[in-house]
Structure formats: structure tokens, C-alpha cells
């Protein structure tokens, strides 16, 4: 990496570290929860940008991987006493082990990655919206299988008793890793191939790029991190069912990607931050509020409506998202400083 890139990466780490540090020191429980939620969304959004934004493949059913990750990690970390009482039908192997958060989360990434490899090999040859429909089908199938595999998942009932292992530290850790992997992937040889295959399929093929392999790599990597996010989510909300990972959350994550910039890692990240915060603000406003004499009545579902409207507006006026394919330059502060410097020098010369 060039010196510039290292400096840029350090800047980002510094900013994130600052946020993390401040949060650890000063944030009370509610703000911490909001930050964790936003960070999980950021991981989801950035991993979605790898599969969708870079390759132009639209995986609408991606949340299936989140579900798989959540259940995998949840089952693996569940305390033995809980397993004995609420999940007696677990296969013996799973019923008698309990592993730590890190290995469970890794497993939570691996299981979806394997599924992604198998399914992707089949469907990623297809074009545009056929892939979209097929992945939607995957979501439906996953949801239904999870709902019916009572022994493993408690079926339609809520999966509870999950240990509250997610904290700000873990979330930031995984967020940084996801960002790094996505960023490196984009800048790599593979990344260029992905973007090429997205922008002009025929030309990319003519250049000898193996489209299937490119898409598959993006898909699998993306599934891994989505699964990781699932594990983090599971150990945060502590109770979920297969219906938790369905269309509403799918829409939210896609919106973050679309608004922030489909081909941009920083766009996906910022989209998650922006929409995640917006969502929290909306949630506070939902029960109704007062601006001076005007009393606004409760508007449940306000968050969804605002996000959906924003989505449509972005689609119409800025279809590639706010950032498009560009990344924000973490060193923009340096350029600002340099300009001040130049300005000072010019003045002194006059």
C-alpha cells in the first residue's frame, strides 16, 4: 500500500476509534444500543455492496444469510442448561456443545458462505432480475425451512435465551474488518473485474473475465459477512424467529445501499449511518410529538414511509446513489489543510 493509502486508512481508524472511545466512556445504554444497531446495519450494507454494488447482481434475498448466521451462532452459543430445557430435540452434537462468541460468529459466517457457494454456482449464471427473483426464492425457502425445522430452530416460536454477547467492541471489530475486506476487494484485480462485468457484460466476457467466478467470489464473501452480522444481531436482540429476517429488514438494508451509493464501500457505510440514524429519529417521533402549538398525532410506520419515499426519490433523481461508485477520500482533511497552507503562502508572497 502506498503511503497515502496507509495514511487514509489510519484516518478512518482514528475516526472510528474516536467514536468508539467516546461511546465507551460517555454513552449511556440507549445511545450504545443505537450505535450497535447502526454498526450492524453498516456491516450488512457494506457486505451487500460487495455482492450487489460491485457486480451489478441484485441479491434481494440476501437476508437469508443473516438468518442462517443468526441461528447458527445462536445455537452454538446457547448455554447447555437452556438447550436442555427448551431445545430437547437438537441433534446430540449440537445439544452438548457450547462455544465462545468468536468461533460461533465465524461459523455464522461460514455456513451462509457455503450455502452461497452452492446456490450461487447455480444461479449466478442468469441475468439481472432472474437472479433477483432466484435469491428472493432463496429467502422464502430459507425462511420456510427454518420455520419448519423445529428441532433446530424451535420452528415458528421465538428462539430465546441467547446470551447477550454483542457489545460495542465486537461490533466495531467486525465492522472494521468488513470495511477493510470490502475496500481491499474493490481495489484489487478482482474488484476491477467485478466493476467491468457490471458495466458492460459483453465487453467483460470478451476480455476473458470469468463472470461466474467473479460473481461467485463477491457473493460468497458477502454472504460470510452478512452471516457475521446475523450472529451479532442475534446476540443483541436476544430473541428472534425466522420472520425476523424477512422483507422489512431486506428493504431497509437495500435502501441504505441504494441511497448511499451502490458501488461504493463508503457510500454503503454512510448510507447505513444516515438511514440508521434517521430510522431512530423517526421511531422517537412515531408516538406523536408537538412543535409549539401544533400537535402531531402518532404515525406508526413513519420510519418505513420516509425511507421508502427517500428511496424512490433517489432512484428517480440520482439512481446510482449519493456517492455512486466513488469513495470519499479520508484524506480530504489534508487537502483542506493544504489549501489553507497555499492560501497563506500566496498571501505572504503578495
Amino acid at each position, binding site marked *: 500500500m502506498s503511503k497515502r493509502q496507509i495514511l487514509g486508512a489510519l484516518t478512518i481508524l482514528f475516526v472510528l476509534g474516536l467514536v468508539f472511545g467516546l461511546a465507551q466512556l460517555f454513552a449511556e445504554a440507549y445511545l450504545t444500543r443505537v450505535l450497535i444497531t447502526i454498526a450492524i446495519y453498516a456491516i450488512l450494507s457494506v457486505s451487500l455492496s460487495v455482492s450487489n454494488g460491485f457486480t451489478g447482481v441484485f441479491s434481494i434475498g440476501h437476508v437469508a444469510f443473516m438468518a442462517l448466521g443468526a441461528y447458527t451462532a445462536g445455537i452454538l452459543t446457547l448455554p447447555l442448561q437452556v438447550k436442555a430445557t427448551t431445545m430437547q430435540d437438537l441433534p446430540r452434537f449440537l445439544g452438548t456443545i457450547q462455544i465462545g462468541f468468536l468461533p460461533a460468529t465465524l461459523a455464522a459466517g461460514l455456513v451462509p458462505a457455503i450455502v452461497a457457494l452452492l446456490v450461487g454456482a447455480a444461479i449466478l449464471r442468469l441475468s439481472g432480475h432472474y437472479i433477483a*427473483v432466484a435469491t428472493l426464492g432463496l429467502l422464502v425457502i430459507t425462511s420456510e425451512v427454518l420455520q419448519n425445522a423445529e428441532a433446530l430452530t424451535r420452528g415458528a416460536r421465538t428462539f430465546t435465551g441467547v446470551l447477550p454477547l454483542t457489545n460495542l467492541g465486537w461490533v466495531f471489530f467486525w465492522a472494521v474488518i468488513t470495511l477493510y475486506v470490502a475496500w481491499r476487494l474493490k481495489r484489487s484485480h478482482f474488484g476491477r473485474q467485478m466493476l467491468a462485468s457490471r458495466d458492460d457484460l459483453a465487453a467483460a466476457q470478451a476480455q476473458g473475465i470469468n463472470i*461466474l467466478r467473479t460473481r461467485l467470489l463477491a457473493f460468497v464473501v458477502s454472504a460470510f459477512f452478512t452471516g457475521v452480522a446475523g450472529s451479532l444481531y442475534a446476540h443483541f436482540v436476544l430473541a428472534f424467529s425466522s420472520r425476523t429476517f424477512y422483507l422489512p429488514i431486506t428493504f431497509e438494508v437495500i435502501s441504505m445501499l441504494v441511497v448511499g451509493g451502490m458501488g461504493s464501500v463508503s457510500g454503503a457505510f454512510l448510507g447505513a449511518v444516515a438511514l440508521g440514524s434517521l430510522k431512530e429519529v423517526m421511531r422517537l417521533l412515531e408516538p406523536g410529538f408537538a412543535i409549539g402549538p401544533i400537535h402531531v398525532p402518532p404515525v406508526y*410506520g413513519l420510519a418505513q414511509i420516509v425511507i421508502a419515499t427517500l*428511496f424512490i426519490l433517489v*432512484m428517480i433523481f440520482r439512481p446510482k446513489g449519493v456517492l455512486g461508485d466513488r469513495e470519499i477520500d479520508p484524506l480530504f482533511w489534508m487537502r483542506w489543510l493544504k489549501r489553507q497552507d497555499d492560501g497563506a503562502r500566496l498571501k505572504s508572497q503578495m
Partner: protein
Amino acid sequence: MSSLETLLQQLFNALTIGSLYAEAAIGLAMIFSILNMVNFAHGDILMLGVYSIVFGVASGLPFWGAAILGVVFAALAGVLMERVAYRPLRGAPDVALLLTSFAVTVLVENGIIMFVSPNPQPFPVPAMLNKYVSIGNLRLPAIDIGVIASTFVLLAVFTLLVKRTRIGIAMRASSSDSVGAHLCGIDINRVVVFAFALGSAMAGFAGIGWAGRLGIVEPFMGLEPVLKGFVACIFGGFGSLPGAVLGAYMLGGMEVMFTAFLPTEYALYRNAYIFVVLILVLLLRPSGLLGTTAKEKL
């Protein structure tokens, strides 16, 4: 019941379910054939039509009057949707339209939750449909008979419209070659509006059958029709209207078969099997049974 009678009963079920899916699928197929977009909000158009029937009846209209209102309202909703959300995106990549239609569903569904109620409401099924007709040892719900009969009538009318009227032919022309259509002086915007109006009206009509059999209406009821309609279109081949109908009956048949002839633990996963079949179809025969689109595979 003898096994023949069981078979007939299941065949009847398959026809009913297939008819419901066909009504849902054909509107989707029409819009796809012209605009190359999958309107995910198609199910919500159905839902809106159904809700307006509930309102109509609650305001004192007789059921059939309210039903006509529902169909008209659905058509209007579809046209409005096209004008506001899809026309500005004309020419955008297909996936953009699909995603936007997704956003539209969120808006519409939350709108209903906000302005009406998040809870299911009863659907006022007219008394004459609320009974059973006995033929020999078979007990056939009157409403199912209604669904099958009306679907056939509807398909006949629809085929006539599309094959014989000027605007129907213009629609087929536009979906076959839009440049050629432009040069013939066809105003594509008008054709699109027609397709949306007709397709949405059909969704509204389909709603009567769907809601009638469920007995209730709720904000998310549009999801199943649109998903099943999707699958039907893919089986039959996206872009082909008769294909969508054929695919719908195939789908209905498969579902009924899985439910009736598999032991319960396996039958639970029937939607999963169907999507597996879907993926197989996408791989092996992407243009479906009767489809027209050429390049779907790399």
C-alpha cells in the same frame, strides 16, 4: 370417497388454485412484456382493490357494486403508480424498476396500516358464494366454482381484448419492438397506461377470489399473490401471456399435489420444493415453456 373421487376433488382444488394464480399472474406478465419490469407492487394493487370493496360494502353498497368499484379502484391505483413511480424511471436498468416497486409496496402497505388498520378485517363474502355444492360424493365450495368460472370468462375477454382490439395489438407490437412501434405512430406512454390499467384491473378482480377464500383482508395479503404470480410467469416464460396462465395452472397443480400426496412433515416444505423447481427451470429452460425472451444466460 373412492380414489377417483379423491382425484377429482384434488383436480378441482388444483383448478381453483391455478385460477387464482392465473388471475394474479396475467397482470404481471402484461406489464413485464411491455416494460420489461416486474411490478412487485402488483400484489398491493390487488390488496387496495380488496380494501375498497370492504369499504364499499361498509358504506352500504351491494357486494357486486362494491366489487366493480374495487376493480376500478385497482386500475386507477395501478395507473397512478405508473405515472408517479415508474414513468420517471423509463429506460432505467430492470433491477432499478424492481427495487422501486419494492419501495412502493412499503409505502402502500404502511399507508394502509396507518390510515386503515394493521389488523385483519373481515371480507364480506356474499351469501350465495358462502356454501357448498354437492356433486355425488364431492363437496365443492361455491366460491371456488365462481373463481374457476370467472377466470375462464376473464381470460376469454382478455384474449379478445389483446388480440382483436387496436390498442391490444398495439400493446403486443410495443412489447415486440418498441422502435417499430414508435415509428408506426404508436404513443408508447398510452400503451403503457393501458397495460397498467388492464393488468391492475385484473389484479383487483383476482382480489375478489383471493379474499373471498381467505375470508379476511390484511395489509400484507398482497405478498403471496405476487410471489406466486412471479413463479407462474417464470414457469410459463416471462413475456408470454398464455405462458403465464399455463404456468399458473402448473403451479397450482404442483402445490395441490405436494399437499395432498406427501406425508405431512414433507408437505410443510412445499413452497421450498416449488422454489427449487423454479431455480431448476431458470437454469434449464430460462425462457420457460412458452417464453419469448432470448438471452437470460451467460
